[in-house]
């Protein structure tokens, strides 16, 4: 039973990284922008967050630095695709390639650094419950924050006027423009918010989850987060579930390794990537369903007037 509790706890922890990133990308995509630069954003944010945490000793400043780095890079990407109408795929790739190089360059002197002992959190009373306690109530506050963010984002998108405008900008920027909404500025805000959340994900990864800086440490999580928004047909709650599912797959790999399963470790490491392909195939098979749920102007440039 204890083992199950630990596995659940680890799953939630791993899922949180994906959840922050995928929720951020969801905001982008709801505004009609695909950001293939998520991987690069997360890497740069991971360095920024880790370095800040090392120098200041504060994890929370680390997260803030990650969010700031993410928002800044996303703003650069946003200026290119929103104002200069560059191809979104190519610009996102540029961001990913730049982020990979830049993070390796900037992070080189942090590869040997260690953070002070990682704090342990528990929620009073609940944490002492058998099984459930260690599984759900001894997590880092960010794990709960991810859940709160999911709820908040759901309310924002479907229950607020601002959310309606954001969705309108992603569905039909022409109509939103005709109604007098500043489409470009709204898109930029969405891109920056998404970048900030990807940044939080990267910083959580390097400051809490791993906690180390290793070159290329995001290891495809940015891309998996991109796939998650499709899996979830652009719904926040489903994004969170998907993130936990993939967190579970990641953890399963370590769990099986720990149990001495007779399978070379490389095949276990492949699991999350293969799972992404399999789920992508299962979900995408029904092209109509994807088309109905996808923001109608996703990836398309918008030229006002």
């Amino acid at each position, binding site marked *: 039973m204890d083992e199950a509790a630990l596995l659940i706890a680890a799953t939630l922890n791993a899922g949180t990284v994906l959840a922050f990133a995928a929720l951020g990308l969801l905001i982008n995509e709801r505004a009609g922008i695909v950001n293939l630069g998520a991987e690069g954003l997360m890497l740069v944010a991971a360095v920024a967050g880790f370095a800040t945490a090392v120098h200041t000793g504060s994890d929370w400043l680390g997260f803030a630095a990650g969010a700031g780095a993410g928002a800044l890079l996303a703003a650069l990407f946003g200026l290119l695709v929103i104002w200069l*109408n560059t191809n979104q795929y190519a610009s996102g*790739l540029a961001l990913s*390639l730049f982020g990979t*190089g830049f993070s390796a360059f900037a992070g080189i002197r942090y590869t040997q650094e260690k953070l002070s002992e990682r704090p342990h959190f528990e929620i009073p009373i609940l944490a002492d419950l058998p099984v459930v306690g260690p599984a759900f109530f001894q997590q880092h506050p960010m794990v709960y924050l991810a859940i709160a963010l999911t709820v908040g984002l759901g309310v924002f998108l479907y229950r607020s006027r601002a959310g309606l405008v954001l969705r309108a900008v992603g569905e039909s920027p022409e109509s939103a423009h005709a109604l007098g909404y500043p489409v470009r500025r709204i898109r930029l805000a969405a891109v920056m918010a998404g970048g900030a959340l990807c940044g939080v994900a990267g910083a959580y990864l390097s400051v809490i989850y791993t906690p180390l800086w290793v070159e290329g440490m995001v290891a495809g999580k940015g891309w998996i987060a991109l796939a998650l928004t499709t899996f979830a047909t652009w719904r926040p709650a489903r994004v969170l579930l998907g993130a936990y599912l993939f967190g579970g797959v990641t953890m399963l790999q370590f769990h099986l390794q720990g149990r001495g399963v007779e399978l070379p470790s490389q*095949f276990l490491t*492949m699991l999350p*990537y293969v799972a992404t392909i399999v789920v992508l195939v299962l979900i995408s098979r029904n092209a109509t369903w994807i088309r109905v749920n996808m923001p109608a102007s996703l990836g398309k440039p918008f030229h006002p007037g």
Partner: protein
Amino acid sequence: MLRLEPRPQPSALMSWASPLIALAITVAVGVALFLLLGKDPVRGLQVFFVEPLKNAYAWSELGVKAVPLILIALGLALCFRSNVWNIGAEGQFILGALAGGGVAMQAGADSSRLIVPVILLAGTLGGMLWAGLTALLRDRFNANEILVSLMLVYVADMLLSYLVYGPWRDPDGYNFPQTIRFAVPTAIPRLVDGLRVNAGVWLAAAAVALLWVYLARIYSGFQLQVGGLAPAAARYAGFSSRGSLWTALLVSGGMAGLAGALEAAGPLGQLTPHVPAGYGFAAIIVAFVGRLHPLGIVCSGLLMSQFYIGGELAQSRLGLPKSITGVFQGLLLFALLACDTLIHYRLRWRAKKAG
């Protein structure tokens, strides 16, 4: 204030000038970066732009890195022109190296030299297989090719790692994760004794010519480009978008696989976990900076190769991390995309409108 104004027609001048402006911007940022890091910027520029060209040995090394970049980028250009986003060339490169390396391992010291074409063919098929998987999932199940091809990079990387740590490990290799060194007859013939540059140069040159002919003179190449530029027009004309998808992915996969086999049987001479050197990703930049045009790709491939060598020299001469190459590569693509705006728009000073 500065405004963008649409041009009546795309500027031919700017489509030539934009990569050069982008390079100038990258160099300017580079100089700023060197100053910021307290390094002599003149020395920095020398390391990137003069030293990689200074003698025969340097030119040979330039060729060694430019060949895989150009081969892969040519295939990717075909993909991007047909609006197929294959970004998993790195994985196809690895599979090519695995397939080619697998054949090379069978050779002995007395094998015939004819094994070289077999190695290259195996590599090409390996890359095609990996890209074909992406094409199949896209075609049959509508799965996004960007994500599938990228995920397959990680899978290929793990496959390589499994083989060199496991069944293919050299029993006499002191437990290092590497295969045996391939027998002498498998080596790709070198152009000049003592220099590493090999016959891959001729293959790359042939590929440049073939792609140019295919894009400019062959009907199927035309169909493929129409499909990329105007899918509706292509459908109306009855061009098969499935055909284009498969062609683009199989050709680019094959090219990346060929590059992988050339690398394995050429400069490497064995398989190690370090086979993937990022050529598959850098080639995306090469393809775009080369305007998706075969001749442009030759220039940008050489430039990118120079960046690689410059990065290595910057490490040994200036004490900068090698990863500075990645920074400049990413910057170059960013700058290019921004400059490309000037093909369709021009900058105009205009007074701010009242109200």
